[in-house]
């Protein structure tokens, strides 16, 4: 079923809309959530909560395209779960990804005034705009979607080693970018 039809079902307050949403995008939603919370049951709960969030937001919202919209809700709820300490195990893909970031950006907290997340997002966005499309996708796959090196390599037709090397360079480049702008996180 196409996205517009699903949204129409939400507008009609038909619960079939949620079933169709799950049929179409449930797999990718669960995968994203599992990468963050590292637990099947928890990820299932997060995805269900995200569907409820979408149910409450549509209408009046009429997101187009629908997939990024629902993924953003899934990610936010999963991260709330993760940072709230309710994630069963902090050993999943997201934990590993955050450890990489922590290692590579250590030492950026020497400046007195800390930056707000929204402002940091704007600067990261500017930094992403300096990358090639492929490197940008690799970065987002790793730190937004919490994909493993293997998954990224498979998606982009690269070797895992290549993905690893590229991510290391991108992190180093981002660190330099943030240092030049005197960013403290």
């Amino acid at each position, binding site marked *: 079923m196409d996205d517009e039809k699903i949204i129409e079902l939400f507008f009609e307050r038909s619960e079939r809309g949620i079933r169709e949403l799950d049929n179409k995008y449930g797999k990718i939603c669960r995968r994203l959530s599992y990468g963050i919370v590292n637990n099947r049951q928890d990820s299932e709960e997060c995805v269900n909560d995200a569907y409820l969030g979408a149910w409450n937001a549509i209408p009046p919202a009429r997101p187009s395209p629908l997939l990024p919209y629902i993924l953003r809700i899934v990610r936010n709820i999963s991260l709330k779960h993760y940072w709230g300490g309710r994630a069963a195990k902090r050993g999943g893909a997201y934990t590993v990804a955050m450890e990489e970031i922590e290692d590579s950006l250590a030492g950026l907290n020497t400046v007195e005034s800390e930056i707000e997340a929204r402002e940091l997002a704007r600067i990261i966005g500017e930094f992403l705009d300096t990358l090639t499309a492929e490197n940008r996708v690799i970065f987002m796959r790793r730190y937004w979607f919490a994909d493993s090196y293997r998954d990224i390599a*498979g998606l982009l037709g690269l070797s895992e080693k290549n993905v690893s090397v590229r991510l290391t360079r991108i992190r180093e480049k981002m660190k330099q970018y943030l240092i030049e702008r005197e960013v403290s996180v």
Partner: protein
Amino acid sequence: MNVKKFSDAMGELDTRYVDEVLGYRRKPAWPVWAKWVAAAACFCLILSAAITFSARLRPQESPEDVSGAQSPAPEPVTAPGLLALTVRAVSPGGEEAGSPAGEEIVMQEGVEIALGSHWNPAMSSRPGIPFTLSAPECPGAAFEVSADGGALLLWEDGGITPAESPFSAGNGAVIYWSSLTQSADGSVELYENDTTYIDIVIREGENIVGYAVVGIYADDPDAGDAQAFTYHAELLKSVSFPAVDGDYQNVTPEYVSSEIAKAKPGG
């Protein structure tokens, strides 16, 4: 370093970065063997020219010679295809590179192309995936096109016409392939096979002067980015039958059918 703040900031990123990831298709790889394919193509060209030239030099057989035992029909002389098959492919820089609909490129034999992505039978402004057929060296060429799945459509003067399979298209025609088929009772069905083959026979008048086979492959929505209705295409084979001694060769539809079948995996 506060990784939570970094994580929060990632969540605040503009949606276009997420859109880009979901719509990203890897660039069609130029395999290592591509240069060997190119070299082989050059070799074939030289070989076909040599065969054509030697055929001209060969003395005419006398009537007595041909009156004896019947020999098997000779294989037609072939040369690289004369079909220029244009598709709208994902642009090399990705969908965000100022060309959301992709760019027009001419398909090369054996090279897989990620088609202009996100064609969706229900939501797209186009009736299907467009293929432009032309044979610049044969202005009078006509194309007999058939597909073993989905539907072939023509989109002219604002109207969409289902095309019979096979149907004949003129030089420069644009045909659309759709995964939706409409049955006689008007119901619409989704063609769910992963692979579709489009067979193209090129004629000048009654004479067959070439053929081509295109494979269309549905991307696996479970492969990571879950975009339905995205496809790859590959020109599996494109062959022409050049004139010998200034005359068309006697190429039969049966011969072309068998060669087209061989060009498909498992054929």
